[in-house]
């Protein structure tokens, strides 16, 4: 296992921003700058979340209403477009904008729910591995290595193929598959914290292992967990969309960004907008989440090794 930990160390060092040389810059100023970006991203994200939550009141049309006469209508700003369908319509005349507003619900629900699940599993296993060490550590870290070797996409595909596609199955699959990254970081941090004086003092005072782990160690890990979880929401959203894109996720006619993109692919020869806009929605959402996660990291702990 030792060789692996050395290799991880190299990776962590590489991903960390090196310390600025003296007089080269003013780090505080840059931090505020990045924080501002994070706040702006959070604002955009808030708009996306709000429009998903209030979709029935915001969406101009019923997302499932078929209107064959207006099928494949072009977006409003193009020649022949109407303001009634701002982003145009799809192959059976459903309003693209309304479907996109509703489609956000799926991605956000799956993203948040799966991340809650995977962070719970990952944090518990990481604490176990880091705190108890030895055999527990070896077993859990072998599990982590197996999972990290396996392409996440392939694993999700195989499980969905067996369980059948549904919203709940997708949350379970993405939730269960995503734990290793938390376990890895939590393990490393726990191993470091375990050796600190206050833990030793707790042991000397006769605190139980459970109390030490949850009262002394976990509070020191929250920033790291929050940052990883935020960034993971974006990853989960991309994967969920890919599964739906392949037809193995949310089933039509329920709108999801992924399955809209998948349906639109068939029509990309003439109607580029059906595939373009849902993908743009995924892109913007994940970008905003990433920006917010990066800012969160700088704000909570600029020295965090993530």
């Amino acid at each position, binding site marked *: 296992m030792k060789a692996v930990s050395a290799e991880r160390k190299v990776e962590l060092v590489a991903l960390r921003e*090196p310390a600025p040389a003296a007089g080269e810059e003013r780090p505080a100023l840059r931090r505020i700058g990045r924080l501002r970006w994070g706040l702006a991203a959070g604002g955009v994200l808030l708009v996306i979340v709000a429009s998903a939550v209030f979709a029935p009141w915001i969406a101009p049309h019923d997302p499932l209403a078929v209107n064959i006469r207006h099928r494949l209508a072009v977006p409003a700003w193009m020649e022949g477009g109407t303001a009634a369908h701002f982003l145009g319509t799809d192959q059976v005349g459903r309003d693209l904008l309304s479907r996109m507003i509703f489609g956000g619900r799926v991605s956000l629900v799956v993203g948040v729910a799966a991340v809650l699940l995977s962070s719970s599993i990952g944090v518990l296993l990481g604490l176990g591995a880091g705190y108890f060490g030895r055999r527990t550590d070896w077993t859990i870290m072998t599990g982590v290595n197996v999972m990290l070797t396996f*392409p996440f996409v392939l694993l999700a595909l195989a499980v969905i193929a067996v369980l059948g596609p549904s919203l709940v199955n997708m949350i379970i699959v993405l939730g269960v598959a995503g734990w290793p990254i938390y376990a890895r970081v939590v393990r490393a941090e726990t191993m470091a914290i375990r050796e600190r004086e206050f833990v030793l003092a707790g042991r000397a005072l006769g605190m139980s292992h459970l109390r030490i782990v949850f009262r002394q160690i976990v509070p020191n890990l929250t920033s790291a967990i929050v940052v990883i979880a935020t960034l993971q929401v974006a990853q989960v959203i991309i994967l969920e969309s890919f599964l739906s894109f392949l037809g193995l996720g949310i089933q039509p006619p329920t709108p999801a960004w992924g399955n809209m993109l998948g349906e639109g692919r068939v029509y990309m020869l003439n109607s580029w907008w059906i595939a373009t806009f849902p993908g743009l929605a995924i892109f913007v959402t994940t970008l905003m989440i990433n920006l917010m996660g990066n800012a969160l990291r700088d704000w909570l702990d600029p020295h965090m090794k993530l």
Partner: protein
Amino acid sequence: MRSYISRQLVQLVVVVLGISLLAFVILHVLGDPVLLLLPQNAGKEEFERYRHLLGLDRPLYVQYWKFLSGAVIGDFGKSWYADTPAFRLVIERMPPTIYLTLAGLLVALLIALPLGILAALKRHSWVDSLCTAVAVAGQAAPLFWLGIMLIIVFAVRLRMLPASGYGTWRHFLLPSFCLGAALAPITMRLVRSGVIEVMNMEFIKTARAKGVAEPMVVVKHAFRNACIPVITVLGLQFGQLLGGAIITETVFAWPGVATLTVESIRNQDFPVVQCAVILLALVIVVVNLAVDIVVAVIDPRIRTGA
């Protein structure tokens, strides 16, 4: 060095065993192949007969042992769909996947190396900011959407390149660019931070003091040392790269292992899925091992565990 390699080999075996177990559990424990194979109105005896025929009525550990002992000699059973050995089906599709992965890696390096070095040398200039912005955006763009956008622009609009297929070098351009663009951001950031870290070190000052020309300092002294974390992480990322190749293949109808896997999942052809998953994992594990050894050869600190 020898003990280092043998330690890694043991780990390799453990990880491969873990993956085979994972694939077995997913396909045999979570799902019932017979239920998928027979029509729904088949009688109970029919089900039992088929279970017996496929050996599914035996204890799970016996089934796993049989599966494992077959897998070692490349016998993954016959495809339930095409009546040919699963192994042969998968092996036939392996070369396109490997070519695509390598081409993607090449594109990623062609983008990431010059930009990463440039960003590191002109740190905090507009070039650096631009590179970082593009990298952040690139990390958020879903691969399958990027692929479709590339098809819409270069195949449908400009009619410059084929939208899908395999054969000539022209077929390689869009898929490998798509895959490379997905891997480039993280590689670029690694190169950048690696070069920055190294440029602050004593031996760089020594080289400069000796009067070595600046381009020489960058290429011979800084870049070579910055390569270590880059190679390590690229090795670790290989699974992700292959995962990206899976997504890229499905978008561009590339005749590789991934399209075969997705087809097989749709057909519920479990032997092929199992075989594909395990062989892909094997490729990843072997590449990881090779990378570990290469890094250990370059950097003696790792193999001695210092």
